[in-house]
């Protein structure tokens, strides 16, 4: 029991470090918020132009579509959509050897740190663009505390799924000398199939079908649909269960692929 508590305390400490690592660069945060906000306006006006022709598209009215835009702009960093190469770089540089001799599980420590990081990004990169968007557009804000609870749970699961996927494509560095190709393919798949670029319900049926076979909609589309009220009742519970299922499957996959990689790892010592 006390072992268990100690390991939880360690997780918490990792999470705190993950948070602190980004907290120390406030200028980067301000610059990032600026960029996310500019793109938020661009995307909001493009989506609004669609509503000149139809009142509802893919289950979204104009207000829901604009809310979707600002929410997704805020989630870019929270779920870390692009460009996470931390593990890949540690494998390439050989730093991974240090991680392996530590008496902690690298995947668990990585997840704890990433959740800490996500908390920082949710507060400082997620909320500001949304608030700025709300000064110009009327946005949906859930009134029920239950919806908020479901949304926050969904975001935590989304971060976990995104972390497992990032961990998986980063482990390709055990086998490949250049991880750039894998990074680009993963980034592209996530951008389109998560519903980040445009909601999955706007897709033609066959493309939406393919998207729903992947874990990607669980990263963006599900939390957003909960927030704007498109997912309620049994659908909402099913969506959360699907997220949980993906989180478990992908974390297990991340663990096994990492273990396979470690088996063939050779680090040149010096």
């Amino acid at each position, binding site marked *: 029991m006390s072992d268990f508590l100690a390991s939880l305390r360690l997780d918490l400490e990792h999470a705190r470090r993950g948070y602190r690592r980004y907290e120390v660069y406030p*200028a*980067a945060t*301000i*610059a*990032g918020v*600026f*960029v996310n906000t*500019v*793109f938020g*306006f*661009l995307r909001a*006006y*493009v989506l*609004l*132009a*669609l509503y*000149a*022709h*139809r009142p509802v*598209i*893919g289950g979204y009215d104009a207000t829901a579509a604009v809310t979707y835009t600002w929410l997704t702009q805020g989630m870019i960093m929270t779920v870390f959509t692009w460009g996470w190469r931390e593990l890949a770089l540690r494998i390439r540089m050989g730093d991974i050897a240090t991680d392996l001799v530590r008496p902690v599980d690298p995947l668990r420590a990585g997840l704890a740190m990433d959740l800490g990081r996500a908390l920082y990004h949710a507060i400082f990169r997620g909320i500001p663009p949304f608030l700025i968007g709300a000064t110009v557009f009327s946005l949906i804000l859930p009134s029920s505390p239950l919806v908020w609870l479901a949304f926050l749970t969904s975001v935590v699961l989304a971060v976990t799924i995104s972390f497992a996927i990032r961990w998986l494509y980063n482990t390709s560095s055990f086998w490949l000398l*250049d991880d*750039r*190709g894998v990074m*680009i*393919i993963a980034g*592209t798949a996530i*951008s*389109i199939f998560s519903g980040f*670029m*445009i909601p999955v319900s*706007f*897709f*033609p049926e066959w*493309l939406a079908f393919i998207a729903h076979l992947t874990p990607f909609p669980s990263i963006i589309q599900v939390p957003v649909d909960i927030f704007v009220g498109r997912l309620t009742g049994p659908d909402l519970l099913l969506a959360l269960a699907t997220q949980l299922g993906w989180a478990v499957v992908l974390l297990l996959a991340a663990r096994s692929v990492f273990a396979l990689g470690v088996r063939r790892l050779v680090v040149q010592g010096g």
Partner: protein
Amino acid sequence: MAEILDGAALYLRLVRARLRAQLQYRSSFVLDVIGTFVISFLDFVVILIIFTNVPQLGSWSVAEVALLYGISCLAFALTDLVIGHLDLFPQTIRDGTFDLVLVRPRPTLFMVLTADFQIRRLGRISQAAVVLVYALANVSIDWTSERALVLAGALVTGVLIFIAIWVTVICIAFWTVEGREVANAFTYGGVTLAQYPIDIYDRWMRSFFAYVVPVAFVAYYPALFILGKRDPLGLPTWASFISPFVALGAALVALSVWRWAVRHYRSAGG
């Protein structure tokens, strides 16, 4: 005059040397170009998905938006080929290597702009060219020599406008080390904006991006003339011909901002 010719000759030599270096890893290069070619279609897929939901965006058909996309993305991809390395410029301020540029016997801007030439951008260039050809084959254009001239001119002035914007905003790096992301909001943000008809944006955004950051003159105004469309915003036809002057003006602004920024530069090194 001799000085310009001398500069051009030197640039050609530098480009040739860089091409030789970058083509050393032939298969890696080919994969990179093919990969970028495929992945660049992502933005365009979003446009296609939009048009599966609505017949028109504002008063623009899918082929007409493709024309805007083709012109602006081709101009931006060519810009990226020539000066894409400006993305990494803030790093040279941070680590002090910019000091090396100051002691070289050529103008600083010349040194910085010619520092690299990334031939792997060919993937993006060919993708934009494919979309442009698709657009030209699918819009009804009453071809005249003036229209052909405006189309060709749009690509040249587009590159000049994007270079001017990039140089102007990258100067932020002289004051803050976080210049890259803010610069991206204008460069990548600018090309994203120019992919869509400007009349879908709200007035404040349109005026800013048409007259302050002049991306409306990259594709929108030239395309209006090529298509024989009336400007929904009510600007007279001559607006389609002033792009070259806008580009020259933007270049002059960029040059003066650069000179002013370099004069104020204090090296971090000791």
